[in-house]
């Protein structure tokens, strides 16, 4: 028999999408670092080329100051680094859009490995014990701690230790000839004579690297964990927002559908599809129909307001919106009901771009134009204008020649469910929520709303949008 178990609610339901490894950077960041690492390497290559030029052009000058720069090795190292860099870049471009983190991590690991080899060669030529060159390994230790999980960064640190100790050991036993840039100062000879200081020197350097690895990897793991928590929380918020949006749609649908059905069937009766009806019945049905439509509109606006209230400012995705085009769309959508009352809607729209939530801006403008139509007298005119003022802010004006708003009511028109007696009498379909919605959206978009009205003459709503580039809420 088919069955279903309701899953228990989980507070931390994120399983990830499989493309990022636990303790690793996100794949996009890893890929970015592939290219960043390569760019950094071009600088090292340039530095080596400069060294080569100096070593080849003025050896006597440096020797006179106790520095022995031998030529060729900087050039060879630069060539090797250049070739590997090109390969890493090519590979980086190939894996650029890969959703898998492994290729990017492998690329970075190989970059680290080849760098460590070349670095060891450079350290050998510069001076493995007599200079601070071995501390360049620290750069790789730190970078490995940032790029990789602690296990891999430890491996990079241990490889650094191994390469350095091997280099020094081979030099000490004369397998590879050691000279270094300070050959004239005879630091090396001192280390050659006594084994213990040399061992102490090498071990202390490696101990520093291990301590740095421990501290940086610990910090890096903490930062990464925090970053992961933030990403998880963000994903959870997005999912909750989507669920809420779908819930709102469902609720709207479920609440409005019965009224739509009642309205449809009342229309059948009123329009004689089911036979003749008496005048009394027709009037009663008309009242039922009007209340039905009003309740349906009220449900929609209550849900809209609830949705706006439950969306914290700044949490809803904003975009660049061509306000003039949006106003035109709104005006078009009200042209038919306006024409039915003989009302003309005139548009004077200059191109204007604002930043906001398209659906909310649409709702705000639609409410204002809807009011202008609803409270205009038959045969009236409505002007909708959009232009930029001197300060760069966009000003939208919606002007009608309607019944106007009494002065005593002006401070309260944005209150929920408030309607002046005159407005309620003139427009029985009014819900008292439209301007409350306008207020909410205007405040969340930092839009200044100015209202002018004179009873019997008309109303002007002016919306001043903040200039582009102003900090969002």
């Amino acid at each position: 028999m088919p069955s279903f178990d309701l899953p228990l609610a989980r507070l931390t339901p994120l399983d990830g999408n499989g493309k990022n490894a636990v303790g690793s950077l996100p794949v996009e960041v890893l890929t970015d670092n592939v290219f960043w690492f390569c760019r950094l390497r071009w600088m090292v290559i340039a530095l080596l080329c400069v060294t080569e030029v100096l070593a080849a052009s003025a050896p006597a000058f440096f020797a006179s100051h106790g520095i022995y720069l031998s030529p060729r090795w900087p050039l060879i190292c630069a060539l090797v680094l250049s070739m590997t860099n090109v390969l890493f870049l090519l590979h980086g471009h190939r894996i650029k859009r890969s959703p898998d983190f492994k290729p990017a991590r492998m690329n970075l690991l190989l970059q680290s490995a080849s760098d460590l080899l070349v670095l060891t060669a450079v350290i050998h030529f510069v001076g493995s014990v007599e200079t601070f060159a071995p501390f360049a390994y620290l750069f790789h230790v730190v970078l490995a701690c940032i790029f990789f999980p602690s296990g891999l960064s430890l491996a990079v640190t241990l490889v650094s230790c191994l390469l350095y100790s091997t280099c020094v050991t081979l030099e000490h036993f004369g397998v590879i000839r050691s000279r270094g840039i300070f050959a004239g100062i005879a630091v090396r000879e001192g280390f050659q004579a006594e084994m213990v200081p040399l061992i102490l020197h090498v071990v202390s350097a490696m101990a520093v690297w291990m301590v740095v690895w421990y501290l940086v990897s610990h910090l890096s793991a903490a930062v990464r964990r925090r970053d992961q928590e933030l990403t998880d929380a963000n994903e959870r918020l997005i999912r909750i927002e989507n669920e809420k949006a779908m819930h709102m749609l469902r609720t709207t649908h479920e609440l409005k559908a019965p009224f739509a059905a009642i309205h449809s069937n009342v229309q059948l009766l009123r329009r004689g599809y089911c036979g003749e009806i008496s005048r009394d019945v027709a009037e009663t049905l008309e009242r039922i129909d009007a209340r039905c439509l009003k309740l349906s509109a009220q449900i929609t606006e209550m849900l809209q307001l609830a949705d706006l209230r439950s969306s914290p400012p700044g949490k809803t995705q904003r975009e660049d919106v061509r306000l003039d085009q949006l106003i035109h769309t709104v005006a078009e959508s009200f042209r038919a009901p306006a024409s039915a009352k003989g009302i003309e809607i005139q548009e004077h729209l200059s191109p204007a771009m604002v930043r906001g939530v398209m659906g909310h801006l649409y709702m705000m403008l639609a409410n204002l134009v809807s009011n202008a139509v609803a409270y205009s007298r038959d045969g009236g005119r409505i002007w909708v204008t959009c232009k930029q003022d001197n300060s760069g802010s966009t000003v939208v004006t919606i002007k009608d020649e309607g019944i106007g708003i009494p002065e005593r009511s002006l401070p309260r028109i944005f209150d929920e469910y408030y309607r002046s007696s005159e407005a309620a009498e003139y427009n029985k379909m009014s819900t008292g929520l439209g301007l409350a919605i306008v207020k909410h959206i205007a405040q969340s978009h930092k839009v200044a709303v100015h209202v002018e009205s004179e009873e019997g003459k008309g109303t002007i709503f002016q919306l001043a949008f903040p200039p582009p580039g102003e900090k969002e809420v």
Partner: protein
Amino acid sequence: MPRVLIVDDDTDFTEAARRVLQSDGHDVRVLTFVEKAMDALQADPPDCLVLDVMFPEDATAGFDLAREVRKRDELSRLPILILTAVNTRFPLGFGPKDIDNHWLPVQDFLEKPVDFDVLKERVRRLCEEGKKAGRGYPRESL
């Protein structure tokens, strides 16, 4: 006689709509299960499809059906009128900007509660335009 298929799970509404459209000279069929709609459309394509969006088992089944219809060669030109109780002004809804062929391949959109005079006019127009263009619109324009 222009043939109209209404796909909507609300029988109180569909019965009223059927009566109104029939009186306006249309041959009307009603389906309350969206799952059966594709088979019905392929077996006997109408001149116009009036389609609800939200169905009990799937909140966007109407959209899915509209997109599926456009993929079928034999139905790609069928005019579709979306008819739903979700408000056009609702920020999450399917307002005029959403009658965008890249987003939803439909020819028209109406919101419930609907005035039957408006519904009759729209259905009549869609059936006529559909016949002129050879059962709907060229696929390339969708």
